[in-house]
């Protein structure tokens, strides 16, 4: 099987984190980005430069995405896959006419 280089954003918890682990276990190289610096560091400790790298970048802004792209392109000569696992709730599940956002 081809070894892939995969960039995962939203990878320091939940589905993103589990996906990063499974990809690394399957022999792929994972570049993981999460918003939380402590969790990103903890995840980075579980990886070696061959299996992958982690960084704390907030990709909720266009500048964050630029930073993420720059970080990844400096650490890999190619990217095969982007997995976007970032996102989550901002307001209540019911709209309530409160201007809640997701």
């Amino acid at each position, binding site marked *: 099987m081809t070894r892939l280089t995969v960039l995962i954003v939203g990878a320091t918890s939940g*589905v993103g984190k589990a996906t990063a682990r*499974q990809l690394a276990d399957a022999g792929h190289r994972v570049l993981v980005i999460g918003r939380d610096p402590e969790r990103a560091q903890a995840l980075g400790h579980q990886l070696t430069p061959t299996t992958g790298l982690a960084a704390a970048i907030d990709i909720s802004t266009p500048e964050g995405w630029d930073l993420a792209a720059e970080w990844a392109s400096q650490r890999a000569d190619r990217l095969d896959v982007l997995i976007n696992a970032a996102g989550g709730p901002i*307001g209540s599940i019911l*709209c309530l006419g409160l201007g809640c956002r997701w």
Partner: protein
Amino acid sequence: MAPISASKAALASLSDALRVELAAWKIPVVVIEPGGTQTNIFAKADANARIALAGADPRQVALYEHHLAAVAKAAAKQKPGPVDPVAQVILKAVQARRPKRRYTAGSDARLLGALSHLPDRLRDRLVRGVFGLANIQPRA
């Protein structure tokens, strides 16, 4: 429910358009649709809901009183699935030579996906049932 529904519809629609745009580079775009999954999302949503409610106009909150109680009750009964099967589906999509455009993960996701093909009236009734809103009367 309106904001999350709109955001998920936007995600599906954005992905469908992006797939067309990126076809020239032979870059596939895949949407993974998990059902309720055991992540921090529910705790975060709960905390955010509390903040939103605390800052809301009490009259608006009162209008929604029965809805909020019913949704909380229905949510407590739902059992979100583990994350690993979802990650497995993503791994499968990543490694596929020709990935499908959409993958569902979890039986509830498959069920809800099937709902969208039902007639509108029936679908609305089933969705209201799932969220405990079937017999909700607004407060007088």
